């Protein structure tokens, strides 16, 4: 069978062809929205037209079976229109109110989980992990699964002071952009790369390997036509491995995850914030990483208990102070928490005011 005629540089199809008619009509003319249920909201246009969005949890990793199933559901109740959210949830776009309840019924029956709208825990932004990436120090999908199992009620029902955005990245490349999340997991190594001096000369470009090291720990090893690492400068980031695979950094005995917290991206109230390190290391304990779930739970519970309405995790922490954060969560504060990288001094407490 001859392949069809390939075309290049055509770009994606035009978005207009995928918008439900009610959206095409009221494009840019919405008036307000209301959250009807944790998984259902309605947007009302200036014209009075309405569109209902029914949000459903997705593991992001979808088989074609499941994709076909949701396509069928959308065909049945949504005129064939659906979308995915920026956090990988599925949204069924209902133009006709009478389809709303039947849709919900069918979703319930089929075991789809509705929720995630409003001040709740939504889906976890995450990455490839052991499923596909060479660089992973932990698995992403597994961590997402066990965390969302634990926090499912915060997706389907319970409200929190504000949205809590979770993220998981399976290495410090941080494809999951965990650096600005309310609570996030980033997988880390803790051992110096093992250099395969046989392979380095063929597989690696020495100057970019040296340039890849954030701490300048790598220098040429001219004799071996390879590189060497100054041990006490290496903090196991693995960036050398990214550009030079024979610098093997994985070590199952030492790999695991760190937890960061307090980041956000929106500009509401306070400017976007970086996440900060709260737990420097927890060993990989698959399949269900109970220690990780436990630590995240501690943070989420303390936030739920202590935050004022509309306060994001980072805003809450800034109000109570980091000393109080470590106190109320019971997480230990260690040397690893104190910055020693490029902007370290900006993080030092240059003030004599603090809490006990």
């Amino acid at each position: 069978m001859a392949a069809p005629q390939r075309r290049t540089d055509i770009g994606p199809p035009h978005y207009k062809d995928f918008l439900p008619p009610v959206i095409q009509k009221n494009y840019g003319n919405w008036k307000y929205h209301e959250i009807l249920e944790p998984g259902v909201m309605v947007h009302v246009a200036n014209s009075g037209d309405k569109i209902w969005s029914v949000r459903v949890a997705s593991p992001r990793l979808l088989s074609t079976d499941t994709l076909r199933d949701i396509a069928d559901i959308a065909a049945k109740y949504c005129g064939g229109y659906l979308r995915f959210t920026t956090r990988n949830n599925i949204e069924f776009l209902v133009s006709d109110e009478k389809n709303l309840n039947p849709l919900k019924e069918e979703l319930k029956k089929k075991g789809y989980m509705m929720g995630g709208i409003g001040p709740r825990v939504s889906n976890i932004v995450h990455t490839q992990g052991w499923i596909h990436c060479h660089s992973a120090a932990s698995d992403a999908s597994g961590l997402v699964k066990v965390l969302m199992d634990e926090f499912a009620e915060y997706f389907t029902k319970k409200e929190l002071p504000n949205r809590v955005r979770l993220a998981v990245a399976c290495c410090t490349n941080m494809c999951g952009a965990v650096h600005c999340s309310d609570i996030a997991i980033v997988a880390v190594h803790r051992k110096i790369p093992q250099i395969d001096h046989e392979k380095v000369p063929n597989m690696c470009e020495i100057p970019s390997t040296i340039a890849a090291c954030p701490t300048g720990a790598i220098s040429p090893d001219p004799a071996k036509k390879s590189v060497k690492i100054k041990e006490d400068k290496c903090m196991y980031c693995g960036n050398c491995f990214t550009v030079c695979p024979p610098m093997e950094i994985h070590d199952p005995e030492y790999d695991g995850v760190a937890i960061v917290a307090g980041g956000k991206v929106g500009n509401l109230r306070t400017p976007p914030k970086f996440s900060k390190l709260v737990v420097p290391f927890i060993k990989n304990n698959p399949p269900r990483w109970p220690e990780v779930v436990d630590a995240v739970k501690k943070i989420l519970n303390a936030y739920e208990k202590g935050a004022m309405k509309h306060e994001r995790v980072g805003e809450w922490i800034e109000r109570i102070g980091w000393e109080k954060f470590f106190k109320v969560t019971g997480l230990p504060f260690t040397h690893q928490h104190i910055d020693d990288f490029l902007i370290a001094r900006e993080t030092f407490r240059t003030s004599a005011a603090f809490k006990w």
Partner: protein
Amino acid sequence: MSELPKTPLLDELEKGPWPSFVTEIKKAAKKNLMAKDELAQLEKSYTDKRGYWKHGGIVGVRGYGAGVIGRYSSLPDQFPNVANFHTVRINSIAGFFYTSDAIKMMCDIWDKYGSGLTNFHGSTGDIILLGTNTENLEPLFAEFSSRGWDLGGSGSAMRTPSCCVGPARCEWSNIDTLDITYSITQEFQDELHRPAFPYKFKFKTAGCAVDCIASIARADCSIIGTWKGNIAIDQDAVKWYEKNGMNIQEEIVNRCPTKCMSYDGKTLKINDEDCSRCMHCIAKMTKALKPTGERGATILIGSKAPFVIGATLSWVIIPFMKMEPPYTELKEFTRKVWEYWDEYGKNRERIGELIIRRGMRDFLEYVGIQPDPRMVKEPRRDPFYFWKEEELVPNSKL
């Protein structure tokens, strides 16, 4: 098709309420050998606590340098069907809107040429077709492209731009996020498909400062909608929120970062001159408050993951740019930025890192933008700065 491998560890991840990725892989594995080996290798990873993938060499489709991530199992003997197992990035639809037909069309092709596994979507916003063999790449691409779909970005190229739902279904969008995304994607097809930059370059567009696409955290160029006028207040709607249990003083007035709001129990007032357009009050009282006046976008540059100098957030380069099709100003600005990067950027140096290395002045002068206090949180502290010859007119004040 043969039976599924034993996966006692992964089976644990089919328990619990959240939809299980393991179940998804198993569904595919039932009819697809690649998916089956993916499942088996993953169980081994769970057992050994480590990944078994190797870095790809360059694989791709003819004429393109981007869009495919090469990947090889490091245990090809045990898992021959994923010995090579590349992901294909399909450029998604702006706003992530789809039709049932389009989804099914993709499934049909993917079942034929790949593992049957996908990500909707990858973090950058591509449709990720999760794993296929080298020989399937060309026919797969032919199937997609002949139906009007193209590959997304990878490598040192422009990456697939993405955006929030914006004007399609949000009352706050100040700009046409979908159209901007579509327009720049089309404009820069060459830059997307043929890596020629020092490193990757990402665009993300949000309709307002709520930033539902996290553009400020993970886009070399973040385009964020904003407005220049006042906030119109519907006092009856304010009352409605109060009646429905909102504590206006506490939840709205006290949380306003610029303290420009007041409420006397009757009338909500905003001193618009002091409002920084943070979106808090509007987001929490959508029926009562509406931005008015001129619309446009703030252009920010530079966010990225931590390598090499630590993570960065994008920062303001152009406080306000009008955003009307064909977005000529944005496109010209983009080309100027790339020209600068091309001129001075080192290999694997993102645009933000470059500007930090060479200084804002160097960059601003190159792209022809005047300094503005909105570019900084605060002016510098130290008195260590440069002067150009022409500024040193002796004995003149500045």
